[in-house]
């Protein structure tokens, strides 16, 4: 019986055809329609003295500057959990929902919407990864206290739709064979040790990605008696990827950014134009 059934599944699989999205290189983002992402802030529409958005933001992503000569609001996307409450609270429409999904950044400061000019120097990183890894990247994932929303999206990366393997990216069980430590969650007291052990066991050069707002800044769940506030004070982080959770294209983008195959989309809190990926680069 079993002998007969397995070819049936093969046939079935073939009949399903190719489910994989072309994903990179297309104009719109397939499968992401409707996504509500990080709020955009329009300085011109911000009313003086109103702090409605600040009070409604649970993870404290919005800070308010009382000095009228300066920019009034700072939105830190590294803390935002995309709950959209500020958009609802703002009486003047200065904060609006956007379809920008979360974006990776190499420097924590670049996730803060300020006027500071941001400069990034990824060229060294790029040369290093290219030199050492060639075209494939091995990831050790460590759940340091997530709500499992981030895992849900990380697991999606290997579904037939995103099919991460084709980018030359693999999850590995052993930190000894890993190039990248991908961490989710705000880091609980009990996971701090195992997390650092995994990092120590990795060969040089090793990279660290904080995936999800929790790992970037603690998000809504960090702090308290049992948690740290994300990775920043524990490990040297190479890519910060906020989002609660970051959706699969955002994770793929951040991974590719680490591999220097796509440029950073956010600098000084400003989102740049969509990337253009020459598809043959990693198809």
């Amino acid at each position, binding site marked *: 019986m079993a002998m007969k059934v397995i070819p049936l*599944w093969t046939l079935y699989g073939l009949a399903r055809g190719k489910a994989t999205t072309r994903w990179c290189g297309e104009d719109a983002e397939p499968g992401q329609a409707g996504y509500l992402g990080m709020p955009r802030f329009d300085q011109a529409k911000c009313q003086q003295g109103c702090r409605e958005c600040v009070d409604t933001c649970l993870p404290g992503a919005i800070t308010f500057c009382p000095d009228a000569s300066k920019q009034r609001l700072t939105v830190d996307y590294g803390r935002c959990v995309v*709950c959209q409450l500020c958009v609802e609270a703002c009486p003047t429409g200065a904060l609006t*929902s956007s379809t920008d999904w979360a974006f990776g950044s190499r420097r924590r400061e670049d996730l803060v919407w300020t006027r500071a000019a941001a400069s990034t120097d990824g060229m060294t990183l790029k040369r290093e990864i290219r030199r050492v890894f060639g075209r494939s990247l091995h990831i050790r994932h460590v759940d340091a206290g997530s709500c*499992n929303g*981030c895992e*849900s999206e*990380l697991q999606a990366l290997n579904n037939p739709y995103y099919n991460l393997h084709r980018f030359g990216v693999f999850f590995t069980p052993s930190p000894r064979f890993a190039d990248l430590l991908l961490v989710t969650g705000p880091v*609980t007291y*009990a996971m701090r040790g195992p997390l650092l052990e995994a990092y120590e066991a990795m060969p040089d050069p090793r990279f660290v990605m904080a995936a999800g707002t929790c790992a970037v800044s603690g998000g809504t769940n960090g702090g308290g*008696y049992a948690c740290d506030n994300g990775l920043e004070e524990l490990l040297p982080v190479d890519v910060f990827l906020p989002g609660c959770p970051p959706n699969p294209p955002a994770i793929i983008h951040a991974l590719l950014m680490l591999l220097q195959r796509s440029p950073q989309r956010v600098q000084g809190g400003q989102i740049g134009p969509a990337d253009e990926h020459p598809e043959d680069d990693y198809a």
Partner: protein
Amino acid sequence: MQFMYAWFPTGSDAPELRYVLHPGRGQTPHIWRCRSGAESPPSLAPAAPLLSWYERETTDLCGVAFRDQPVPDPLVLLPGAAAERPPLMPGPLPHLSYTPVPLPMPDLAGTTREDVQLLPFGPVRADVLESTQLAFYYIGEAILHYQPRLFFKHRGMEKRFEGLSPALGTVLAERVSGVGSVAHALAYCHALEAASRCEVPSRATWLRVLLAELERLYNHLHYLGYLCHTTTLKVGEAQGKYLEELAKQVNCQISGSRLLRGLVVPGGVRREPTLLTLAEDLVRIEHELRRYADQLAATSSHLDRLITTGVLDRQLAFDQGATGPVERASGIDRDSRRDQPYGAYDELPLSVAVRDGCDAHARQQVRVEEITHSIALIRAVLDGLPEGSLRADCRPPPGGEGLGWAETPRGTAYYAVHLDTAGRLARVKIKSPSFSNWRVFPYTVHGTNMMDYAINEASFGLTVAGCDR
């Protein structure tokens, strides 16, 4: 008996214990209140075994010791962790110190120690899995004893609620167990709505059913894909995950969030979901699902691994507090959507899937049937969605309290909410279904073999985040 917890009434250092019972179909819950004064309260675990974990948690977090607790060990705080003071006691946040303690060898009567080996896994596990430590005490292929060490992911979520405004608590409830965002938000909002006696508009209650069933849909599809992964049915795994992805894209389309976050609010739903293409998308998913489910039911290599794996008998399931598809696969006909109905469930055609196979196969069957029931419910909502407003004013009174529940894809979640005199959250107790099912699960592992373990675990569909909080 469902669960128990302790809280500190405003201005008091003396904890009050609460026991929550659901006496039966159609009846409202009974709540026992108990102040024990100077003497420590007796453990009720000998009479109601499922209470054991709640009592141990209460000792860890609220500092209440129970007389004659059968297992007086810490639970939520790991061995080697010590809080300056019980974290849920009123007052400043305590410092938590921690020196990890290695897993002990248990006393196994009748076996010489040298034969028994300890195989520890985790807390960091292979692939993309949640952190938890598993200890197998085994001889050859046979597992003599199995002990999961959970709570590496304890984040102190219940404490995080304290001091927040009730509305903001919803954002937090959605982040207790991400794949149960809707149901957790619902149980939390139900508790607030009970406290404020607010009437949720009927359009909102119907939309909430739609969201909750969409959540069940993508979770159960994920479950099937992952179960196939453990039985090494590759195409079945890919197809399950593909269907899950389609369902998540539908979620995104209608709510703006692939995990359906941000729509449930106290008093109703926040905005109209985009339902334009939902009916069409459902047809597509259902069509693929039918063939997929038929294939699964006809693949003997897959079924062989499930049948008689991880047997959980009815009595054990009941005594130890199994919930959701796990209890329903052990012949217990309970579902809070029907038995303690909330929202619009009593106006909609709801069927409850029950099997008495008690094994991994029965647990799969229950899930497959629930998928079809969820699709039917979503259709019924689309067909009969009443017009009207989306949201009522929900302001729980200062000093108020409420109990709420919702049937998550993994079983019943409860939230007990107490407000302080300023109307802020004073205590939020979360009873998550995975806490219940993790307690039951080891009973199905002792005395089995290593080969079946991964399949058995997948067949329970547990989350760690919800259990550990």
